[in-house]
């Protein structure tokens, strides 16, 4: 066989092996919910009905009830006592029974103060319901179709509200804590409203599930008014694939993912700019605290979030396009106004590390403040946007964060499972951060954020207010007074390489395997443990060795080159220092790049007489580095599709190889080749491997 053919054969074997490894990797995650489509938008936000309730739910212990209403204001107390008498005669003892009795649209169910454990819903499924044929999600429970939920409503739900139109469920207590629906960690959902357009929830508490308390799926028109949800594995409020929704005056805490999650809200504004006819979901007056994130909006499209408080979570609010399977991706058109987002510095990752989150949900201690973070995210951040477009963040108070007020990164589409080439860079664009009050609370007291902005550099049309303090990158496009005005706009396809490396490392989190990636400062790595510092150190060592070798072998006599090398070493040292967490948002990285650029420029000039091609390469590298310094410190360079750091990286790799070869090459001395006693080149074939015995 000729050598070419042998080469191709070997190549195909190796590549086939690689392909086999790829193909045997676990496939895309199974879908966790039945396929849903977004509503057509023909509904409307339901209005509160104040008449007499049609159905009543209460417990029969009169003495206990009187104790519960004893402290109520007089009118409310009288009403409740009257309702209780009516309920004792002809009402229901469990909410599910009342829901089952709803036979026409527009009914109202009143729940009287008490504790509702919904005992008839609790027993394990039996008979047909124990043998449902349905695919299993990767989380261990089955994915049931709507018909299966109808026939077996309590496989996964404490209270199932299926196909009831315009239903209103309200508690009649003085505060939302008077009516408590407690799943005791025995069901995935406390209340599930599926196919129930126009549902109105008011004035109660739902708590302690292994997934979420209040689940509204595919509803066109819903209101959540004065409801508390707490202590769930994932979400407090989950309103998925819904439109015409309103959350007001709600509270949620103790959840392992987010308190409020309008995931896959109806994507009605796709194609609009900043001005939109309406929003799909409005969230106002809510407080979400002590969760992993207060608000999460994966594909949270067209959501208007205003006048809420998101505090004491790991992250205040997060919206992203990073997870496959959410209709409506990429995320777009969220509007955050006048929210108080502050002090989101909790760190719940130690609960994962010490095994608390490996226990069953009932034993984790959610009531004592344990939260088990389900995904990877940077603690100490105000608003995280990981892949989103056309979002408006205006006039919020964001203060007291130990990492950053704003976090913006892009997510290539293949992460969410879309492989079309044109879509890969469809985030993050046109996000506007203007007019926010950073580092001060409403009273004007100073609570600074450690940095204001962390941006990976990708996207076009993003802009920030000009009074942002410490930011990384140091120079940002600025917002004009009108929406859509951006000064210094850039349009880069990929973010900075070091930031991308960090995001990649940090994303390798897995709560089930208790895997907290060691190189990521989100999980506590500091100093040399962080991947950015390791990369900077490695790169600096390589460059220093190559530069010193070049100087020693080729430029030793040249004083300019000597000075330049010293400057270069200083620049590399500062680069390593500037990669640490404390010094990244300062001017130090830019200074380091400046010194390194000067080094290369001078070395290039020094090499011009002896090695012109290498000299030009070095000069180019120096120019690119100086440009990168300018880009980081003064003004982001518009018009280039990639950050100068990429050019610097690629050119740097080439330069290092070239410099080492240039310093190593020596003309062979003719005497060496024919030295006496030098072994010949002929291979010997007749001596066995052992040599002479």
């Amino acid at each position: 066989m000729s050598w070419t053919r042998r080469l191709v054969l070997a190549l195909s074997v190796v590549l086939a092996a690689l392909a086999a490894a790829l193909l045997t990797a676990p496939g895309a995650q199974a879908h966790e919910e039945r396929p849903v489509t977004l509503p057509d938008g023909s509904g409307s936000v339901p209005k509160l009905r104040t008449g007499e309730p049609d159905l009543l739910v209460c417990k029969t212990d009169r003495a206990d009830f009187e104790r519960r209403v004893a402290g109520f204001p007089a009118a409310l107390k009288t009403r409740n006592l009257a309702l209780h008498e009516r309920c004792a005669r002809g009402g229901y003892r469990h909410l599910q029974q009342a829901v089952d009795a709803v036979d026409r649209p527009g009914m109202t169910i009143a729940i009287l103060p008490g504790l509702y454990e919904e005992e008839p819903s609790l027993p394990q499924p039996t008979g047909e319901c124990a043998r449902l044929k349905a695919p299993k999600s990767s989380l261990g429970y089955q994915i049931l179709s709507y018909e299966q939920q109808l026939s077996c409503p309590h496989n996964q739900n404490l209270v199932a509200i299926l196909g009831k139109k315009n239903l209103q469920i309200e508690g009649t207590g003085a505060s939302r804590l008077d009516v408590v629906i407690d799943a005791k960690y025995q069901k995935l959902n406390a209340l599930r409203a599926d196919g129930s357009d126009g549902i109105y929830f008011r004035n109660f508490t739902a708590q302690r599930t292994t997934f979420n308390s209040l689940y509204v799926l595919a509803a066109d028109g819903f209101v959540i008014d004065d409801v508390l949800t707490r202590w769930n594995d994932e979400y407090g409020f989950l309103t998925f694939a819904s439109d015409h929704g309103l959350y007001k005056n709600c509270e949620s805490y103790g959840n392992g993912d987010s308190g409020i999650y309008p995931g896959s809200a109806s994507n009605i504004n796709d194609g609009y700019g900043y001005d939109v006819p309406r929003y799909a979901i409005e969230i106002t007056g809510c407080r979400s605290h002590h969760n992993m994130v207060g608000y999460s909006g994966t594909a949270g499209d067209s959501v208007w979030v205003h006048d809420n408080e998101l505090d004491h979570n790991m992250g205040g609010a997060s919206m992203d396009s990073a997870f496959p399977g959410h209709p409506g991706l990429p995320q777009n058109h969220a509007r955050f106004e006048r929210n108080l987002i502050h002090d989101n510095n909790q760190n719940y990752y130690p609960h994962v590390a010490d095994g608390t989150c490996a226990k069953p949900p009932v034993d984790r201690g959610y009531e004592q403040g344990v939260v088990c973070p389900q995904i990877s995210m940077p603690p100490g951040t105000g608003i995280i946007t990981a892949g989103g477009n056309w979002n408006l963040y205006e006039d919020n108070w964001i203060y007291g964060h130990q990492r950053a007020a704003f976090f913006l990164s892009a997510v290539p589409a293949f992460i969410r499972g879309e492989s079309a080439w044109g879509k890969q860079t469809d985030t993050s664009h046109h996000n506007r951060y203007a007019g926010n009050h950073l580092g001060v609370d409403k009273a004007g007291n100073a609570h600074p954020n450690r940095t204001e902005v962390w941006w990976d550099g990708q996207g076009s049309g993003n802009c920030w207010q000009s009074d942002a303090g410490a930011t990384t990158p140091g120079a940002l496009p600025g917002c004009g007074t009108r929406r859509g005005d951006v000064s210094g706009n850039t349009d880069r396809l990929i973010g900075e390489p070091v930031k991308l490396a960090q995001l990649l490392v940090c994303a390798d989190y897995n709560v089930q395997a208790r895997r907290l990636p060691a190189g990521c400062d989100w999980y506590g790595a500091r100093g040399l443990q962080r991947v950015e510092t390791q990369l900077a150190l490695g790169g600096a060592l390589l460059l220093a060795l190559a530069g010193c070798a070049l100087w020693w072998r080729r430029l030793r006599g040249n004083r300019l080159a000597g000075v330049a090398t010293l400057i270069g070493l200083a620049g590399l040292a500062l680069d390593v220092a500037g990669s640490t967490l404390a010094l990244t948002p300062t001017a130090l990285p830019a200074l380091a790049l400046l010194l390194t650029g000067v080094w290369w420029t001078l070395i290039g000039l020094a090499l011009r007489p002896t090695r012109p091609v290498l000299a030009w390469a070095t000069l180019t590298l120096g120019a690119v580095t100086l440009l990168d310094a300018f880009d980081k410190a003064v003004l982001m360079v518009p018009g280039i599709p990639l950050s100068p750091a990429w050019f610097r990286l690629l050119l740097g790799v080439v330069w290092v190889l070239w410099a080492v070869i240039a310093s190593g090459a020596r003309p062979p001395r003719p005497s060496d080749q024919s030295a006496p006693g030098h072994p010949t080149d002929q291979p010997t074939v007749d001596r066995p491997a052992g040599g002479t015995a």
Partner: protein
Amino acid sequence: MTAFPLPVAAAHAHAESLGLPLAHGVGSRHDLPLSPFYAYAGAFTALLVSFLALGLLWSSSRFRGDLAGHPLPAPLQRVADAPATRAALRLLGAAAALLFVLHLLLGPDDPDRNPAPGALYVLLWVGLVPASLLLGPVWRLLNPLRAVHALRPPRHPRPLPAALGIRPAAVGLLLFTWLELVAPDNASTTTLLTALAVHTAVQLVGAARHGDRWFAHADPFEVYSSLLARLSPLGRRADGRLVLRSPFDSLDSTPQTPGLVATVCVLLGSTAYDGLSDNPRWITTLQTSPLGPTATATLGLLAAVALAAACYGLCAGALRLTNRELTTPLTSFAHSLLPIALGYLVAHYFSLFVTEGPRTVIMAAGTDNALAPAPPLGPGGLATLQVAAIVTGHVLGVVAAHDRSVRLFPPDRAVAGQLPLFALMIAYTLGGIGLLIA
């Protein structure tokens, strides 16, 4: 630790009748997976060194192979070459073999009470590594089969075809590693006796046809020991004197027999498969495969060897493309893979040797269910040792390859010609480190 009650021991003796072999035949403990920090540090060091070597090392060949070395004092040489010494070593080997066979025939079928499996898999297979590194190709001197053959040497031994080289030994090594890593129930006396019988038969029949040079071509342990001895400081110069020399020189003088590449690829591939066999995903594949665990594991072992060979083949092809005059790219550089194979061996087998080796000896002395000593280094120390072994192997390989390439390539292409080799070695090293993480 309490000794096993007898019925439990009996159950253990029938262990793995349907399932997967224990680690390396014997041994109850695997090494911890490496933390990525050590791995990245090791990989980075390897890359850095290769890269620097490319430019900064010598530009004309320095190693003198067979001609180098400080001769040992003459009395030592006389003792080493004396027929009495040789006979004594031969007797020692034969006695050890006899003991081994007796333990197999008469001893209990329980690896916890019979030192024979440990003697084979640990004392012989792993023990040959330090022995050969220190003392040269020792198995040639100890091989009991040579002693048996010498009882009745053939009168007209047939010559071996030149192109055969050490390929039979490569096949033998593959079969042995199959026995060690894949064969079900490989610590039972029946299996070991069968293997021993097959090995003895092949060697003795071949030696009866071709004379005692058959052993040097076809006995896997002799070839293994001889290849490892290329890195020993103790060697024999071209004129027959025993010398102390730099391992680079002895490595440089590795004769380029056909089959050298195959043997090295078998060593690399089988050690790589050993690293893979701990991986939970692989074990699940084995247990759920429709072909059965043994067949799947065999396929895995063959695939690992084939992958190592294919990578090397690619590299050799690329070398030839850059330099048309290079007629034997495969064998010219095969010697530079030996240090990498040695690094792999040390990384995977060190802790087995220091825990199971003493245990086997204690069992041979008569204690049943002997306690294996804890490894002398803590997890961090072991991890450092493993990475250091692989990286050192890589460094030695790089230096050896560099020297050979500046000898073979014209000066203006010396650097460019090394790039495919360096890529190959980096692939092997990163692969080796990656297997340690898994």
